[in-house]
């Protein structure tokens, strides 16, 4: 059966691999025709000829000089195909492969597959009107413009020529009866279809047209097959994946298992140094799949789709030597959701302890406290090697935060923040958090006054500090209320919060630990606020106007301590 399947190979370098693959195919009983680029060094070519001299069914066709993306490749392919059809009348299917293709299954499997589909042409052939994979913007224009310059060697001229023709509205007409299609060059055609293409009666006119098209080797056979084929299955039997630039992915030794499990017949492109792949797939494999197993390329598809995702979108919250997104191009400013609390440790006794007891989150103190980083448990060095030194942190507060969140992926981080903390230049840190959808920021405004009140000092001593903190918090609230804020932000004045503390606590908690029974959890205890109203009045009497707390009556009454949330 293998004798009914012929292989045409287009090769230009790495000929020792060509010799290996051609020998493997020929020894399986299939005829092989090789076209070697005329620019391949003569010594290399002679070596290839010598290496294959003992195989009568390996032939070499007339050599022409090939250039990427040009008509020469079509001519080379036609020479090879013609020699194949003329020399081996028993051949019913012809499979095209390149010097970097590697058979992944015994030839008999492919031959059996084709015998099951005797009249089908397997050629990826997509109408140019519908393709979306062409890179560089040229699809239909491949056929309607002129391409006098080589894309790889004369890129500047190539681009200018395209621009100029667009400006002049230059347009070539497609020959009558042809609908341009493009697709992979690595096809498998029936003798009938291939013969009809080679014997095309309107050949001179069609040739003239394709000679001037761009990358005709991806369109000539694909278009002509549409004319002559009885039954097209628009896919290539050769497994090949392309990266986001449209360059083919390369297979290496470490892809062996992936390729083995794909059950595909042929793969491209394989690195010429991949000794293990060549050794494995070009030997008698005891682990070969059953002869009628269908190819399953989806695993490989996923593997490379993930890679493209990493190249194009990157990992959220990662800043490193080869990924440093400009503002708003981060695809995720931070790695994980986190919670920022402002005013809670001031209002509640042991808020940190309470929160870490009732949630699975890591609860820090004021990470941005002016003199020291207050890591959970007041560690000296935290995850990833972050130091509690304030000067290291303040050197780049934003990087400190992104590092922390990156280093603790998988564990929610909560920390306290406030107007007394390091803010970064121009509230840079808060602006960053406010614009980050991962941040949950909860603020009880004016709560900074509670520690002042509890310090026992007199209002006249605290007046300046109170004014400073109020000024900073006012600016912070401005940042949080700006239209650029995308974080989950909640702001209460102290007065609002105290009216019914359990409601806000409930909703915050639901976001941090959605699966916990929040309503069953004991509320943390509020600090003693007796006399706070009078303290505020004292500040007013000193000429300072505390406003961020909201309307506080002179004699405030605590809500009943110890009640349950909701």
């Amino acid at each position: 059966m293998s004798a009914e399947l012929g292989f045409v190979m287009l090769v230009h370098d790495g000929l020792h691999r060509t010799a290996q693959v051609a020998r493997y195919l020929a020894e399986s009983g299939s005829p092989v025709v090789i076209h070697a680029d005329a620019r391949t060094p003569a010594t290399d070519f002679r070596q290839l000829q010598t290496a294959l001299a003992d195989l009568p069914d390996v032939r070499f066709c007339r050599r022409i000089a090939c250039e990427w993306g040009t008509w020469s490749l079509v001519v080379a392919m036609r020479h090879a195909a013609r020699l194949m059809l003329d020399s081996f009348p028993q051949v019913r299917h012809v499979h095209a492969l390149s010097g970097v293709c590697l058979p992944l299954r015994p030839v008999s499997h492919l031959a059996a597959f084709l015998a099951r589909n005797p009249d089908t042409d397997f050629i990826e052939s997509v109408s140019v009107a519908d393709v979306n994979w062409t890179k560089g913007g040229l699809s239909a224009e491949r056929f309607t413009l002129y391409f006098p310059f080589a894309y790889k060697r004369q890129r500047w001229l190539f681009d200018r020529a395209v621009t100029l023709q667009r400006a002049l509205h230059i347009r070539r007409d497609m020959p009558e009866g042809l609908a341009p299609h493009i697709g992979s060059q690595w096809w498998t055609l029936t003798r009938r279809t291939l013969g009809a293409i080679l014997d095309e009666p309107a050949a001179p006119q069609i040739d003239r047209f394709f000679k001037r098209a761009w990358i005709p080797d991806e369109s000539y056979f694909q278009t002509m097959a549409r004319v002559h084929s009885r039954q097209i299955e628009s896919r290539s039997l050769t497994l090949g994946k392309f990266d986001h630039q449209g360059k083919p992915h390369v297979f290496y030794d470490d892809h062996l298992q992936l390729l083995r499990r794909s059950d595909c017949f042929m793969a491209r492109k394989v690195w010429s140094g991949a000794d293990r792949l060549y050794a494995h797939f070009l030997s008698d494999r005891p682990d070969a799949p059953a002869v009628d197993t269908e190819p399953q390329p989806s695993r490989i598809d996923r593997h490379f789709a993930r890679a493209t995702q990493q190249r194009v979108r990157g990992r959220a919250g990662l800043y490193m030597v080869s990924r440093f997104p400009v503002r708003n191009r981060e695809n995720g400013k931070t790695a994980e959701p986190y919670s920022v609390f402002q005013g809670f440790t001031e209002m509640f006794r042991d808020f940190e302890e309470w929160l870490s007891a009732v949630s699975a989150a890591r609860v820090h103190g004021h990470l941005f406290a002016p003199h020291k980083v207050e890591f959970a448990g007041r560690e000296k060095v935290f995850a990833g090697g972050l130091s509690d030194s304030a000067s290291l942190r303040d050197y780049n507060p934003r990087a400190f935060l992104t590092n922390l969140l990156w280093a603790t992926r998988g564990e929610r981080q909560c920390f306290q923040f406030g107007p007394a903390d390091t803010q970064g230049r121009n509230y840079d840190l808060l602006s960053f958090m406010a614009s980050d959808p991962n941040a949950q920021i909860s603020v009880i405004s004016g709560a900074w006054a509670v520690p002042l009140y509890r310090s026992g000092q007199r209002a006249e001593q605290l007046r300046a500090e109170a004014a400073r903190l109020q000024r900073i918090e006012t600016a912070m609230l401005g940042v949080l209320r700006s239209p650029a804020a995308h974080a989950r932000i909640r702001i209460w004045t102290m007065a609002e919060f105290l009216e019914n503390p359990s409601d806000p606590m409930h909703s915050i908690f639901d976001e941090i630990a959605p699966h916990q029974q929040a309503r069953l959890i004991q509320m943390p205890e509020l600090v003693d606020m007796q006399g706070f109203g009078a303290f505020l009045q004292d500040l007013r009497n000193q000429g300072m106007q505390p406003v961020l707390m909201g309307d506080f009556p002179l004699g405030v009454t605590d809500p009943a301590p110890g009640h349950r949330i909701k």
Partner: protein
Amino acid sequence: MKRLRALREAWRWRRKRQNRLLRALWKRGELRCLVDRTAAIGAGDVLVFCTLRNEALRLPFFLAHYRRLGATHFLFVDNDSDDGGRELLMQQPDASVWHTRGSYRASRFGMDWLQWLLIRHGHDRWCLTVDADELLLYPHHDTRPLPALTEWLDARAIPAMGALMLELYPKGPLDAQRYSAGQDPAEVLQWYDRANYTITRKSDIDALWIQGGPRSRVFLADRPRQGPTLTKVPLVRWNRRHVYLNSTHSMLPRGMNREIYDDQGGEKLSGVLLHTKFLPQVVEKSTEEKSRRQHFGDPGIYDAYYDALIQAPDLWCAASTRYTGWRQLEGEGIMSRGEWA
């Protein structure tokens, strides 16, 4: 106006680059060739360039490591070693060796010498410029040697690959370890910091400036600006017009620095230079370095740092990560495979 300024800026950098090239020509007089095997360099070879002084202990593994990666020729500038390292290098069949007594500091930390060798032998080749205490890793390096990497980069017209210099350190005082020549330094220095790096984009040369790691954490907590620069551009498809700007941290023309990272959210392929500075010998070497004062930048400010090193401190902490291989570093985002899956 803005355009004019940009033009003037471009011209200034161009002059700077040309000056550096001239300097390299001038400084080549300080080099004396001891062994020249460069005739053996083949077309697709990846070359390793290295200046060193008294690194005999590290050399056996250094050579083995880069040979295993697929480097085919080494070009060494020996800055007057007296520990037998030079003789060792001269015996290597794949190494060419130059000798100089010139000042390391006055030749911009050896870069002027290497610059000349890069011009002379590196043009249009893939060149790896590293220190003797730097071991390059990149994703899949265990199954895809350097030629696989450079072919892949060439196919995409990517002219350089960046790397983070990752400091490895032991657990316990630096001088309490034992290292013998030929041993993998990562067996002794098993730990690293995985996420305490800061990045600034230097807008004038479009390069990233990464700092941090254990040296900042332990020695420079109160002056983080002086933290070591950890950005590196070790692997470059060299052109005789290229120059390294300061050490191998950044390059001219400036566009080369832009090739290293993606600023639209994606990840480019990058590697890691394992820095094996903290082998036990660093303690005595620091005494020598301090007195030689040949360090990068203002040598005076490093006195405190050397004093600290001479005390053989312990860089390890509970937050340190044990190094287990490239997959771990890739997973931690220390380096990235980009699209090279």
